[in-house]
């Protein structure tokens, strides 16, 4: 309470309060009263600090009202003779503030801020491309190396996409080979091992098995066990009831272990 009164630079109320507390303290004999006294001291010192800071600002008095008026002028306010129709709050000058008022202020502000430009991939939006070269003009040498770094993420993205396509293409290719074989010798499914094993490369063999597994998953090929218990593979016919077939096919699991020695 009375905080504002104490704050006023003209008043000595703070000093008086401190002196009063000092006198009272002599009469203190209980801990509770001492605690109250301590609390009062904290409060008093806070007020003292505030007074001191207000003192500082009064040295070079800064007139905020005048500043506000000048800001409005800077932002392009149109002060007319007529008063506003809307309610006039106290201290508000009449006038029409244009829509781009704050944009004008912003343009001035940007001259002073050393703000890092928001980073966006070039690949993302073509619209932002014209502004990027403009900023780079200042940086000269840094510009070219900067673009290189920008190009790198773009290139990496492209590679990743083609990688996925490669797998699909392989799968398709293998399906076609399987179908061609089968067309030549209908009714005779091909031995699984004959199909996937590459006599020259173990890695290739594994890759082939990988691609075949996609065909099976998608229901484009089928693996069965023949009379000898060896797996054979044949393409499935494209039928309208394709969904039911593929559901049934998905139920079987075959675990094949193949290491390099066995392969050889």
């Amino acid at each position, binding site marked *: 309470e009375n905080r504002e009164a104490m704050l006023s630079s003209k008043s000595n109320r703070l000093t008086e309060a401190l002196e009063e507390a000092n006198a009272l303290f002599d009469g203190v004999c209980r801990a509770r009263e001492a605690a109250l006294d301590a609390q009062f001291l904290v409060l008093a010192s806070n007020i003292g600090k505030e007074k001191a800071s207000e003192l500082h600002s009064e040295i070079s008095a800064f007139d905020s009202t005048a500043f506000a008026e000048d*800001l409005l002028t800077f932002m392009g306010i149109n002060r007319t003779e007529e008063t506003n129709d809307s309610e006039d709050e106290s201290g508000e000058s009449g006038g029409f503030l244009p829509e781009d008022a704050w944009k004008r202020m912003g343009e001035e502000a940007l001259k002073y801020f050393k703000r890092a430009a928001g980073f966006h991939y070039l690949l993302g939006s073509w619209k932002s491309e014209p502004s990027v070269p403009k900023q780079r003009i200042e940086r000269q040498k840094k510009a070219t190396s900067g673009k290189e770094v920008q190009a790198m993420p773009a290139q990496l993205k492209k590679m990743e996409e083609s990688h996925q396509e490669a797998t699909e293409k392989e799968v398709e290719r293998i399906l076609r080979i399987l179908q061609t074989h089968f067309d030549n010798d209908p009714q005779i499914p091909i031995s699984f091992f004959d199909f996937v094993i590459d006599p020259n490369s173990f890695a290739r063999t594994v890759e082939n098995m990988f691609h075949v597994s996609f065909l099976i998953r998608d229901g484009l090929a089928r693996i069965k066990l023949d009379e000898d218990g060896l797996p054979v593979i044949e393409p499935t016919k494209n039928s309208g009831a394709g969904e039911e077939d593929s559901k049934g096919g998905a139920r079987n699991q075959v675990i094949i272990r193949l290491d390099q020695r066995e392969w050889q």
Partner: protein
Amino acid sequence: QVSELAQFLLIKDQKKLPIKRADILKHIIREYRDAYSEIVNKAGRSLQEIFGLKLVEIDSKRHIYILVNSLANSEGKCQEKEKMGLLLVILSFIFMKGNSVKDSALWEFLHLLRVYPGKEHGVFGDVHKLVTEEFVRQKYLDITPIPMTDPPESKFQWGPRAEQEISKRDVLNAVAKIQGKDPTFWASQYSEAEA
């Protein structure tokens, strides 16, 4: 790792929210924890050399970073222009008033500019949120409660990002320009700005 970190920092900085060391460790450095400072330093150097951006640690206890432009902006960027205008006004007010103002004083001042905390603003929307949350989270402004005030009040000061991105001298010059006076008109602010 270095280039990954550099890209990570650039993207994280888009929203102007400070970047925490914990995030860097989790997403980029992972198992190379021992090399943390080396990786960070190299990334900082790349950013400086290639993009002209300074990686600044604004909190050495909790290890929080921001990106600041080493060069002054040559052209006005379209995004966020108006927010920067409001920010400059607020930072100027705080500085000219002795580097710290009560929130009530700030809102009283913004009133004069037709900006009200309770009313939706045509340009800024929820101004109260913008000033007390967004600007504070981005470390442009610092808000601390004043103890033992009833009703509770807070005070506004410059935040660490403001200290990095703009100088007191620039702010004083801006004020002087807007008011058509010489910066030396305000003696104590001038000497503080020149220090």
